[in-house]
């Protein structure tokens, strides 16, 4: 059985002037799949995400989105404008019209009931990440694109956040692309990890990437990839991809 990818890139290239920010990126994401992108600073991780959401023009290659694809996007929390006074409640309504039931569900799922009246600017990193995720989920996306969703989280909060992501995938079946700022910790449920440095250095399951010579060459022998593990008693369908 073949599944139509939510989004697919073919030899994607984005330039800034003459400099190639990313090039020869070919990837696809299917429903229910988690893709984690890692790479050093300046590797083009955010550029790739921006290209996927259509925020920057593609200079070469192409991006194919499934018809009617709904994207839920969370930007990096440090890039959110903090001078605007806005309570969480209002921020959520900016996602557009959402039914009351769906809204309650998402709020419960992301555990942000207690934050609704708070100002966005006063939230902690973990709270802000959950609020951003809630807003992205309100759009009932087919594809979630998360830019550094664990930035500003300590270890327990990060673990919790990954658990939440995993739950979201099971409940909604959406595809998830995320950039990890931490090279050593990626979500164990990632179906694939892409190690990016302008181009795709190596990719595969977390365990495979951590053993790849390209990965070791880039981050050094000591930078063993440590997929975050947590107990789960279910199984996922795995699709075959190139």
């Amino acid at each position: 059985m073949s599944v139509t990818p939510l989004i697919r890139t073919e030899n994607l290239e984005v330039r800034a002037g003459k400099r190639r920010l990313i090039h020869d990126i070919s990837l696809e994401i299917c429903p229910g799949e988690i893709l984690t992108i890692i790479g050093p600073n300046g590797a083009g991780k955010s550029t790739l995400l921006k290209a996927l959401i259509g925020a920057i023009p593609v200079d070469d290659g192409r991006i194919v989105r499934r018809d009617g694809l709904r994207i839920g996007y969370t930007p990096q929390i440090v890039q959110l404008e903090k001078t605007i006074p806005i309570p969480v409640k209002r921020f959520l309504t900016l996602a557009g019209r959402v039914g009351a039931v769906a809204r309650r569900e998402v709020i419960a799922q992301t555990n942000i009931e207690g934050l609704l009246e708070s100002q966005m600017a006063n939230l902690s990193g973990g709270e802000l990440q959950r609020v951003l995720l809630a807003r992205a989920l309100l759009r009932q996306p087919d594809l979630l694109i998360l830019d550094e969703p664990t930035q500003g989280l300590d270890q327990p909060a990060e673990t919790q956040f990954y658990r939440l992501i995993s739950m979201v995938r099971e409940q909604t079946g959406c595809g998830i692309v995320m950039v990890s700022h931490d090279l050593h910790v990626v979500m164990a449920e990632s179906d694939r990890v892409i190690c990016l440095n302008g181009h795709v250095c190596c990719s595969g399951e977390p365990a495979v990437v951590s053993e790849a010579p390209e990965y070791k060459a880039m981050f050094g022998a000591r930078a063993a990839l440590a997929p975050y593990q947590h107990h789960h008693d279910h199984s996922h369908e795995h699709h075959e991809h190139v």
Partner: protein
Amino acid sequence: MSELLLKALIAGGVIAIAAAPLGCLVVWRRMAYFGDATSHAGLLGIVLGTALGINLSLGVALLAALMAIAVTVATRRGRYAVDTILGVFAHSALAIGLVAAALVPGVRLDVEQTLIGDILFLTWDEIIFMAVGGAVILLVILWRWRDLLNATLHPDLMVAEGGKIILDRLFLTLTLALFVALAMKLIGVLLITAMLILPAAAARPVARSPEAMVGLSMMIGLMSVVAGIWFSWTTDAPAGPSIVVISALCFVLSNLGSRLRA
């Protein structure tokens, strides 16, 4: 009430109301210098409008819009910090306007009136133009409000949800250019940005939501207009600067107040 005073109050009120949502957006998006650049270009608009014999407001709106587009394009290149480019544009536009006012034949410009405005020279036609223009600004902003807020919080947030960044910039800069054309006569080239950002900045410490901030800055703007015009009427001080002085007082008070409460 004298007709002169009535006209001044109506014009001031229209400008204060139109300024509120625009001013909040300018404050949130750190565009204060952008306001300066567009309004300073208005001076050249007046000079050229006079020389070519076209409607002055049209001349101002055109030049302000051109400036807005030029600035938007120029700030996309990375060689200078954004505030440097905006400073260069704003001050150059002012200087070029002043030089042109002196050199372009057939232009007899009251420079002081252009720089700080003159509320006494308003005609009913101009006030109707201001009211219609103000209504256009409010309608455009109301129509685009969700996208404007999303793009303020994070441009990519709007894009990912299907918005177009170019449209966002276009509507914001064009409404700003229109505002410059409306406020020019009343408040003068130099203080247009003040009319935008002071009430919004004064509202910020008290506001708990974007809409509350717009509402509050509208009230502060209206109060400044009434108090400023009254002050100008009784003391013969220029009206535009008087209005801005009241707004500045509101800014100080609201910041002091929120400090004391904290």
